[in-house]
């Protein structure tokens, strides 16, 4: 019998990649979708035609119970979150509700409906925030610096708590930044590659950014969803850091992205104070040794390749304005 999975946050970057990966592994895949006429449903449906969408909301525990009863998943991947750090400063309570409490609502729904369901929680390197050591591993203490980070720490702790107290197979994947051509435009990597493509095509002349010295450990989202799936195939539930172990600054990203189309970033980038976060995080770099050892996981896309892939994709989309994928973006 084929296995069944439920993905929350299926319309996000990782949701699409994970749905594709699970479909390829022979799963029946359900995606939780919020609200009526959610425009992002169309996009993910086109991306993964086999995906079955079902309505439900991390705000509403009874909707989660109903969804679990209707879809009978063997595995639940909780990718649903208000995932944009800057937005979490403006909508702290909503972030707490969805990114934090939403995890408890889903875990508790699993406990009530079928405690044999395996649960994956998308935790984040933002939990480390003002880091106490580098690189960060599964034992590094958390010191979150944003409402998003605090809510993710809550989600992590409650996942561990359901594993230890109720015996659920619940794991927390501590994922460092992972990007792709499908990254939302509000994230700095995609903002840059989109900006580079626009500047190259003569649609814009400048790109406004915040802190260019911010350093991140950036991987490829397609690699990271493989790790999520692997975590739920183990004999024992455990938490794993997923990262490349390399850091690069926004400046280096700019260098490669503009360089890819033969431009100099210094001619186009304007530093705008408005984009500086109230409290920016220090150097985040993950130590994925445990994932490598236990899961046999390795990243396959290196940083320069990732940047080139994203710039190429944005150039392609913006040069073909009538293609459905670029609809509304210009």
């Amino acid at each position, binding site marked *: 019998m084929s296995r069944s999975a439920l993905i929350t946050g299926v319309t996000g970057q990782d949701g699409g990649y994970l749905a594709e990966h699970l479909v390829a592994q022979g799963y029946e895949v359900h995606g939780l979708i919020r609200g009526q006429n959610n425009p992002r449903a169309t996009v993910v449906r086109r991306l993964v035609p086999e995906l079955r969408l079902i309505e439900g909301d991390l705000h509403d525990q009874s909707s989660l119970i109903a969804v679990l009863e209707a879809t009978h998943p063997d595995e639940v991947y909780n990718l649903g979150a208000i995932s944009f750090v800057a937005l979490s400063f403006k909508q702290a*309570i909503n972030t*707490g509700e969805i990114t934090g409490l939403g995890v408890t609502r889903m*875990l*508790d729904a699993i406990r009530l409906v079928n405690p044999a369901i395996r649960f994956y929680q998308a935790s984040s390197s933002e939990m480390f925030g003002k880091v106490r050591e580098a690189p960060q591993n599964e034992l590094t203490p*958390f010191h979150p610096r944003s*409402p998003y980070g*605090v809510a993710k*720490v*809550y989600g992590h702790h409650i996942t561990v*708590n359901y594993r230890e107290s109720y015996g659920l197979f619940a794991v927390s994947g501590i994922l460092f930044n992972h990007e792709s051509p499908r990254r939302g435009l509000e994230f700095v990597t995609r903002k840059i590659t989109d900006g580079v493509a626009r500047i190259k095509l003569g649609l814009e002349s400048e790109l406004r950014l915040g802190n260019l010295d911010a350093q991140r450990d950036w991987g490829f989202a397609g690699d990271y969803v493989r790790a999520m799936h692997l975590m739920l195939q183990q004999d024992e539930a455990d938490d794993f850091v997923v990262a490349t172990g390399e850091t690069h600054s926004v400046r280096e990203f700019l260098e490669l992205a503009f360089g890819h189309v033969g431009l100099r970033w210094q001619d186009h980038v304007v530093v705008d104070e408005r984009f500086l976060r109230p409290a920016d995080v220090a150097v985040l770099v993950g130590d994925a040794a445990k994932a490598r050892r236990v899961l046999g996981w390795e990243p396959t896309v290196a940083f320069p390749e990732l940047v080139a892939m994203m710039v190429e994709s944005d150039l392609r989309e913006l040069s073909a304005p009538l293609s459905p994928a670029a609809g509304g973006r210009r």
Partner: protein
Amino acid sequence: MPPPHPALPGPDPGGYSRSVPAAGRRALVTGVTGQDGPYLSALLLAEGYEVAGLILPGESVPDSVPAAVHRLEGSLTDSGSLRAALAEVRPSEVYNLAAATSVADSFDNPVAVAEVTGLGVLRLLEAIRQADPGIRLLQASSAEIFGGATTSPQDEGTPLCPVSPYGVAKAFAHQMVQHYRRSRGIFAANAILYNHESPRRGTGFVTRKVSLGAARIARGLETELRLGNLEVERDWGYAPDYVRAMHLILQQDVADDYVIATGRTHTLRELLEVAFSAVGLDWRAHVVTDPALLRPAEPGRLCGDPSRARARLGWAPTREFAELIREMVLTDLAGIDPVASLSDPAGAAAPPSQQPG
């Protein structure tokens, strides 16, 4: 507090005075009906504060809450009620003592606990930021945020490691308080409170369960006392000492977090020893351990290091463990009328507890 100009139209009877008191300070206390709320209210009133207490709609207010405390309805689950309370009281200090406080119950109601104990604090922080970012906030944080700590004693730098839904929610609140202090410039401080007890402790807590049990057995109303794990070790202090620390924390120049603890732990077994010998009994003859009362996950050895509070606040606990427990047992004993004991509210009204601590 009487209005300063009785000839002028005063506030509504029982309403909150619009005049600024001599000290000019007003405090809003959430969770005012709990163990700590009445102690804290009494202390603030004695310091010259005007005190308002937030009570849940329809909640009954125990006699221990001083009459001078102005009562306002509101809930941490309702942002609008918090904004309204801040607008009405215009406090200079807010003490957030409200929470779903039973660790054991939190395993049955993790979502509800998170709504109040976790997210409720964020709602309060946001309400303060929007109403008046000059308001100082004292968050009653808890040793349960260190539940699974591998080091002992714990201090303000110990990594958080909660092991119950209650602890996880308190950890969320703790870190949000830190976030609003560091990134939003709010004078918000965590008092990391270790267990603190008193004769007013709720009967669901193990110390009170024991003191009441010992008193009832001594009065011949019961013969046994059912408990969970007797080896649990806690750092038990005296509640009035702890509310004093809360107040001191908000009087500092700089907001910071403080561990409030005695620095000494005792086992439940030792607690039984002291409590039963206070009424001349041997606990071994009466205590039954019941596996149904064990928690799904028990925190490790929670012992706080209050060095920072001692150094900066000049705070020190005043009550010894044995003295505290004896006081609790003797208060419970006095509350049970030896003649009319079967109809006595202090004893008979207390429901049998399902909670080990």
